[in-house]
């Protein structure tokens, strides 16, 4: 091979940004097939099933273990992809004097809502966060500059910032998933890396009560579509027009 041939090949394979991307998309025919039918991933959380085991943290622990989420001791540095909070503070506007007593001990699982109309995405000055074709709100940790505008824009407090190097605070590193570096924002990714492999999200898999249902809203026959058609469900702060993809079932 002479120098010219080499340049030609590198030119096609490794230089032109646009041409290379199209080449890659063409090359991976599997992905092409997928793009035809878009998914709308969503999650339903059943209060009645979740409340059965008091103090259960299986979903949280499994998620944080799989995704190398650090455990900071200082509350102000805390990073969380999925966590639980009191019903009153999550659904403050849905609380009245009676439910206050009734639901006093109900803790509600919170995670990124993967909004259909995400306020965090439009404020990002570098397109480091975006909605992918299946409706998942993604973060590119390679591109994030750490301005934290998305954190201010999120009405659900779903985003955490790496105030310090997280590595020393990860108990056990899962080598199949990258960690994050200091200075970037992170959050739940609806287990994008697992669902492309045909697996369920880590939290859904871990729940001993099957309180979490995950699936495609675009498929009327999926478990979650059927569930939401038959059970009464609420979303967090629906009045903000973000259209959350996490539903809570009574």
């Amino acid at each position, binding site marked *: 091979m002479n120098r010219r041939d080499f340049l030609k090949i590198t030119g096609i394979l490794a230089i032109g940004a646009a041409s290379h991307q199209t080449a890659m998309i063409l090359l991976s025919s599997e992905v092409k097939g997928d793009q035809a039918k878009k998914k709308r991933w969503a999650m339903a959380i059943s209060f009645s099933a979740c409340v059965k085991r008091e103090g259960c943290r299986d979903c949280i622990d499994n998620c944080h273990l799989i995704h190398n989420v650090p455990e900071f001791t200082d509350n102000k540095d805390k990073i969380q992809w999925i966590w639980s909070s009191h019903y009153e503070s999550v659904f403050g506007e849905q609380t009245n004097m009676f439910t206050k007593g009734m639901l006093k001990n109900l803790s509600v699982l919170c995670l990124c809502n993967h909004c259909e109309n995400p306020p965090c995405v439009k404020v990002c000055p570098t397109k480091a966060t975006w909605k992918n074709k299946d409706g998942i709100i993604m973060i590119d940790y390679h591109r*994030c500059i750490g301005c934290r505008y998305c954190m201010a824009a999120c009405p659900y407090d779903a985003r955490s910032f790496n105030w310090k190097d997280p590595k020393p605070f990860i108990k056990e590193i899962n080598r199949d998933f990258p960690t994050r570096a200091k200075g970037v924002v992170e959050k739940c990714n609806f287990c994008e890396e697992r669902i492309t492999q045909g697996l369920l999200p880590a939290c859904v898999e871990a729940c001993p009560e099957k309180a979490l249902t995950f699936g495609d809203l675009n498929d009327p026959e999926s478990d979650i579509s059927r569930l939401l058609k038959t059970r009464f469900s609420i979303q967090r702060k629906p009045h903000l027009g973000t259209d959350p993809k996490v539903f809570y079932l009574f």
Partner: protein
Amino acid sequence: MIEKAFKGTIGYWLWLCFLSALALAGFISYLRQLDIGLGITGMGRDVSWGLYIANFTFFVGIAASSVVVVLPYYLHDYKKFGDIIILGEFLAVSSVVVTILFILVDLGVPSRVLNVLIYPSPSSLLFWDMVVLTGYLILNIVIGWWSFDAKVKEIEPPIWIKPLVYISIPWAISIHTVTAFIYSGLSAKPLWHTALLAPRFLASAFASGPSVLIVLCFIIRRWFGFNIERDVIKKIAIIVTYALSIHIFFMLAEIYTVLYSDLPSHKSHFEFLFLGVPGNRFLIPWTWGSTVGAIIAFVLFLISHKKNDSLVIFASIITVVSIWLEKGFCLIIGGFVPTPFEEYPKYVPTIFELFITLGIYAAGGLILTILYKTVVSFRQSK
């Protein structure tokens, strides 16, 4: 021309050394922040913007306010502002530098700051803020320097300066409007989510910026014997008076709307700011201080035309402090408290954060001193 800035009295050099030392201390603190991360500041997962962004907001206002001396001179041919206009423009230059520095130190990964240019995102107000601030900086450097150069050489300023000046007037409005839009466009933060935010920012900018200019005029008179006409300062004081009255009116309009409509999500922020909650009342003195301060300053400005200079200086200083507290500190921190989970976290800046902030002030002060010294030295040599 600039060489004039490097000839001065011992006092002048001591002042430069003092500012440099402060800037250096800030820089060293910043190196530490780079090493450890923003975790060394008082910010955290709940109050995720703090002193840096607060100062950024305030200084965008100072930068924008140079328009109040530019506008009368160029649009209304108010020739008396001829001397002060250059001071206003150079104040804008150093303020814009300060705002850019505050944004930079607030970034988690500053080495990636160019991503804003590499992946331009017109849907983000932060992107637009970068565009308008950079543009404003260039406009002010070009206009300020070339018109000053023309004065030194006693020639007419270049023909293209005038169109640039006319562009710079709405541009000044735009920088503070875009800064307000950063906040007011967020449905997640009820305290910021008000259409009045941009007008409020402009009103308070036109009060605080010219107040800074008044104080600076007195300082350079005292230090360099450089006299700005009394009439000019009086005129600026009148501008401040009206801007303050509009600022106070906007504040009251905001408070009425929130309190009368009784919307819990909006009211809770004001309750926290003015009354506090059990266990967290730390913003009360600052909120009340800024509100009462604005009213006192307004009254002082109203009666000051009969009185001596010190009253004007005093009123100007109160105005600056009051608006720094209102637009900078309380607005930014208050926007985050209560959190979406109705918690009331505390935010106290750390010593590193303070040093970095002071360091940036000092850097701005250095630029301002050198630019002003150049102007003053030239004027005195004439």
